[in-house]
């Protein structure tokens, strides 16, 4: 039991980074980032490349993953999303674009890194005991880094000037413009920050379970599940969704045979959405 809780907490912290990132992009841009899982995957593979192939320290690899994936996100906003949103009158267009960027990243990863599962050795070795549960030091480190980042992001969004402008932009674009905010710049930053979080999450997870070029869709699906549980576009919802999914998964893997966990999660999600379509924290639509 304790083991399940420990596993759940570690998953939840990693998922929270994913959910926060996709929420940031969704609330600021009003775009569901279908490429979020692919950004996660890219972050993992960049860490693999810098650490396993170039022999650089893990911290450097993780920073590279954050920066590189962040830049990819910013480029997507500047060169793709901004243009399509300006010229198109239908929301489906940005959705198709988002799916397109996911395919683009996935194929780029395939040609750069191949389709093999990649991992790197744990950054730290050793195992802690918490009651009856075993906590490998590496997972504890991943958990710690995730927590620190989550707190940092929350502080940034709540108290910094730029973070405040991001929240404003998510709530009312015109009013934000009237405050003299360079909304284009804030959108680019928001997209970049959301992407960087996905990259970091991938760069952390590769030390635990490895990453391959094809996992993007599965990760994006998890991200969607989390924001559907918590409520789209709400930070508290993202965190709640991450915690819920992390623990449900941990319990499922402990008590159910392999692939049944996600089948159950989907069935539960459908039932849940029938009762509460806006998620736990979300505002009802309309």
């Amino acid at each position: 039991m304790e083991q399940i809780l420990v596993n759940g907490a570690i998953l939840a912290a990693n998922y929270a980074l994913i959910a926060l990132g996709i929420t940031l992009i969704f609330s600021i841009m009003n775009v569901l980032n279908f490429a979020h899982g692919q950004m996660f995957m890219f972050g993992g593979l960049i860490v693999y490349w810098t650490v396993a192939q170039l022999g650089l320290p893990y911290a450097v690899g993780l920073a590279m993953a954050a920066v590189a994936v962040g830049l990819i996100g910013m480029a997507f906003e500047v060169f793709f999303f901004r243009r399509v949103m300006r010229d198109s009158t239908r929301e489906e267009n940005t959705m198709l674009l988002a799916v397109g960027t996911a395919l683009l990243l996935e194929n780029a990863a395939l040609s750069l890194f191949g389709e093999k599962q990649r991992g790197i050795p744990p950054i730290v070795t050793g195992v802690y005991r918490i009651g009856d549960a075993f906590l490998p030091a590496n997972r504890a480190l991943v958990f710690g880094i995730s927590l620190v980042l989550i707190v940092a992001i929350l502080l940034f969004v709540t108290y910094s000037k730029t973070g405040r402008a991001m929240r404003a932009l998510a709530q009312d674009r015109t009013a934000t413009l009237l405050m003299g905010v360079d909304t284009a710049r804030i959108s680019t930053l928001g997209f970049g920050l959301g992407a960087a979080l996905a990259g970091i999450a991938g760069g952390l997870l590769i030390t635990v379970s490895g990453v391959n070029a094809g996992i993007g869709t599965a990760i994006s699906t998890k991200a969607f599940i989390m924001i559907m549980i918590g409520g789209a576009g709400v930070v508290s919802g993202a965190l709640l969704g991450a915690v819920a999914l992390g623990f449900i998964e941990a319990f499922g893997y402990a008590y159910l045979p392999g692939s049944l966990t996600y089948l159950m999660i989907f069935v539960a999600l459908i039932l849940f959405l029938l009762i509460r379509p806006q998620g736990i924290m979300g505002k009802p639509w309309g």
Partner: protein
Amino acid sequence: MSTRYFEARDLTVSYDKVAAIRDVSIGFDEGQVVALIGANGAGKSTTLRAITGLKRPGRGEIWFEGERIDQIAPAKLVERGIAMVPEGRRVFPHMSVRDNLLMGAHTREDKAGVASDLERILTRFPRLRERLRQNAGTLSGGEQEMLVIGRALMTKPRLLLLDEPSLGLAPLVVRDIARLILEINRDEGVSVILVEQNSRMALRISQYAYVLETGRIGLEGASAELIDNAHVRALYLGG
């Protein structure tokens, strides 16, 4: 060139090729309150949107403090001293009153000035001080109007555009808002363009007024005279 403090000359603005306003010209001197009245759809909001750059005029020029401003981006106009309170108030609903006000100071670097302006605005609006940590979405209509006016003042404007501040407010609250606009104009030396459906209130507190009729200036003149104008009385003041 324009020699007046503010001048919009022959503005024509279209949505999808249909003109919403045509050849609208407005001008006034520093420190004035100017009213823009007219029926629904006459083009009042469109005129303000053109001035703040939210909607580019197809034709015409806009001059402010001796400079042409009609090609300047909306965000940059804030730094030039023009602030607008849009129709429907538009507070940031999931943000505290304090954060809403601080959003108004986004472009400002003078920390001490921002702090003292915040203090001054909270003194002017004690209701906002009591609710500093409350989410703006939970305020009453009148409080929200005070908040968006306060938020606009935080940008340190020299020209303030107000789009229907009285909309949906009880008569007593409308009186408060009217008094407030006059105080701001007097105490802070801010020039005001006031768009209103409440023509009586607008004509009372302005020195000069323009009447928009389906996209054109139908009538203009000193507000005190328009109040007595038979045409205005019949159409906009309920006889």
